[in-house]
């Protein structure tokens, strides 16, 4: 079984790159692009599922690309950790691509290609066991991302995209310099040959340069500011896609380098623990202060990065398992919440907490997705957040870091607070006539192809709002309002925009109820990180 699968590992990269490239030159046929794009992503997810099943017993698959001898070739490796993340990223890409199709954004000619190439780059970054090759795959991930940012940035400004490119390029350059330094010291960039190399302080510093670059990409505390600016400037669905892929791949690399090269060396892990704790505190409090839904969620995401990194910083078997479980939970829940925000922003043209109101009575499905996401993010049972957070708090206390355990609990309450803020303003508030005008204005803009800061004709907007109120009946089970005619008629968010968020919310419930499955997968993944000898043996072909 494993002998058959190993030579297929490069397909996780090669197939998406090839199909993505072919779609660029394919005739301008929406359906073909949508079907091929979705087909590729679903195939990637099924392949990753097969890998998860095969590696669940601790097997490590390794393939020396082009059958060069071990140590010379570029190895592709799949262990339980990379397979699990490969599966989650593929599922997230598919769901976000479904949203892009539903919202019509995927009709731009190159969107499908970009998403597929991005998924291919993610596959490469997760599977490669060579630091320089890792740099190449990070760039393969970034190039289509730049394209997505530019094409789908609805506000017309390039400011966010320029910032994104500049920060990421700077981080990549730093990473490359770190790889060069490691080569200078050790004479190799093969991860397996570098196992435990950080015993030598010079190598440790060279590897720390790589870790610093990765920390920029993962948005760890002192270098997290760029994330909120750039993710808020792009299309909301793209922000959901990036949140699941880019920062989490960076976190994966962080885990891998910490485990293989540093082998959990105490001094470095203490530094990471402090940075992670500050990140989760700063992110959570920054979120409370935000007035728009998307920056609020992005700061919650930064806080989540802190939670995940606490796992690796503890470097106990339980800590790493809890961190990985939290990573899986966080990717899914954050994707769900950002897609909820996407649906709101797409329909109402604004994500400002003080402008959109009263979604609770009108949008039962969207409200359900949001409530599941919000409670899961805060860590309440029976959702996946409870399982992951409980394990993480337990691991911190178990490792003697009682202070960190306390911080985790308190910060979860702060996260709940910012979610309550969204609930109180956007969902629970009373719907008023301005909300309808806002939605009408968004539709007028979309129809005329105007950007967010272009002036629109007030009469057009008023006519559009009238039309929507005439046209749409109140939702079933709700009596037309007595006092306010705008209460329950008018714009509704289309169901097709809500379904992707609901799917991810459903996954969060499933992982919460089946917490045993989530934890056992994470535990299996952590075994390969705590003891890297299997990984090394597979890569070196011994």
């Amino acid at each position, binding site marked *: 079984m494993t002998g058959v699968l190993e030579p297929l590992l490069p397909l996780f990269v090669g197939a998406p790159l090839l199909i993505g490239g072919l779609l660029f030159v394919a005739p301008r046929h929406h359906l073909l692009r949508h079907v091929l794009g979705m087909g590729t992503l679903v195939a990637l997810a099924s392949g990753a599922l097969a890998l998860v099943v095969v590696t669940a017993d601790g097997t490590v698959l390794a393939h020396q690309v082009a059958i060069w001898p071990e140590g010379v070739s570029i190895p592709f490796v799949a262990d339980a950790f990379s397979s699990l993340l490969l599966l989650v990223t593929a599922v997230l890409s598919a769901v976000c691509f479904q949203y892009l199709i539903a919202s019509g954004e995927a009709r*731009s*000619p*190159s969107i499908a290609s970009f998403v597929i190439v991005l998924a291919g780059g993610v596959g490469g970054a997760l599977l490669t066991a060579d630091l*320089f090759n890792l*740099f*190449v795959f990070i*760039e393969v991930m*970034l*190039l289509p991302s*730049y*394209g997505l940012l*530019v*094409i789908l*940035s609805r506000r*017309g*400004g*390039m*400011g966010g*995209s*320029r910032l994104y*490119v*500049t920060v990421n*390029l*700077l981080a990549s*350059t730093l990473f*490359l*310099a770190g*790889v*060069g*330094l490691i*080569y*200078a010291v050790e004479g190799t960039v093969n991860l397996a040959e570098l196992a435990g190399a950080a015993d030598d302080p010079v190598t440790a510093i060279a590897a720390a340069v790589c870790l610093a670059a990765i920390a920029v990409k993962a948005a760890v505390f002192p270098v997290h500011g760029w994330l909120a600016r750039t993710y808020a400037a792009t299309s909301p669905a793209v922000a959901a896609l990036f949140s699941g892929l880019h920062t989490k791949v960076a976190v994966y690399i962080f885990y891998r380098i910490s485990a293989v090269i540093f082998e959990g060396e105490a001094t470095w892990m203490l530094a990471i623990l402090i940075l992670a704790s500050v990140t989760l505190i700063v992110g959570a409090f920054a979120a409370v202060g935000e007035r728009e839904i998307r920056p609020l969620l992005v700061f919650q995401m930064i806080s989540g990065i802190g939670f995940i990194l606490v796992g690796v910083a503890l470097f106990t078997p339980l800590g790493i398992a809890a961190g990985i479980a939290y990573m899986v939970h966080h990717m899914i829940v954050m994707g769900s919440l950002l897609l909820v925000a996407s649906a709101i922003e797409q329909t109402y043209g604004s994500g400002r907490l003080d402008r959109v109101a009263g979604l609770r009575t009108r949008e039962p499905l969207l409200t359900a997705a949001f409530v599941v996401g919000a409670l899961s993010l805060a860590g309440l049972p029976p959702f996946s957040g409870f399982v992951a957070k409980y394990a993480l708090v337990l691991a911190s206390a178990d490792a003697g870091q009682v202070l960190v355990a306390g911080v985790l609990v308190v910060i979860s309450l702060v996260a709940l607070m910012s979610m309550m803020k969204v609930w109180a303003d956007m969902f629970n508030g009373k719907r008023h006539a301005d909300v309808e005008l806002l939605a009408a204005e968004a539709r007028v803009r979309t129809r*005329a*192809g*105007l*950007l967010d*800061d*272009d*002036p629109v004709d007030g009469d057009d907007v008023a006519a559009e709002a009238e039309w929507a109120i005439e046209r749409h009946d109140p939702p079933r089970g709700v009596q037309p309002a007595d006092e306010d005619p705008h209460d329950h008629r008018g714009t509704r968010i289309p169901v097709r925009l809500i379904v992707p968020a609901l799917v991810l919310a459903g996954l969060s419930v499933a992982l919460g109820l089946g917490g045993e499955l989530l934890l056992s997968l994470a535990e299996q993944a952590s075994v390969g990180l705590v003891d890297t000898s299997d990984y090394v043996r597979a890569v070196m072909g011994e």
Partner: protein
Amino acid sequence: MSLALSIGVLTAAGVYLVLQRGMIRIILGFVLLTHAVNLLIIAAGGVSRREAPFFGGDTSVAADALPQAFVLTAIVIAFAITVVMATFAVVGRGDDDTEPDHPEPDDSASSGPSAAAGGVESPTNSGDAS
């Protein structure tokens, strides 16, 4: 020593330019920074051995081929990204913090909607080109 000094000077100049506001200067800064890193990788392979590593040459004096392969790859990637960044410098409207290369006449009031429509089109086209 000269290699180390070159890397230092290139890095310093690159960092200085990246911290400027104009996109063109940032791009030039990155060009210098990537040159610095490429030299660093070449230096990592050692520069004292310079003979060709093939055609039965003496391996004790042959140059390390791996850093050169790294640098070749890195140059190609840096070139591609420079092109993407150059695209970013010219698309979009003048609402960023970057300085215009030449002062433009103020016609934004008269051509609002049409200029906006153009603004939607041009990123799409440039994205395809990249």
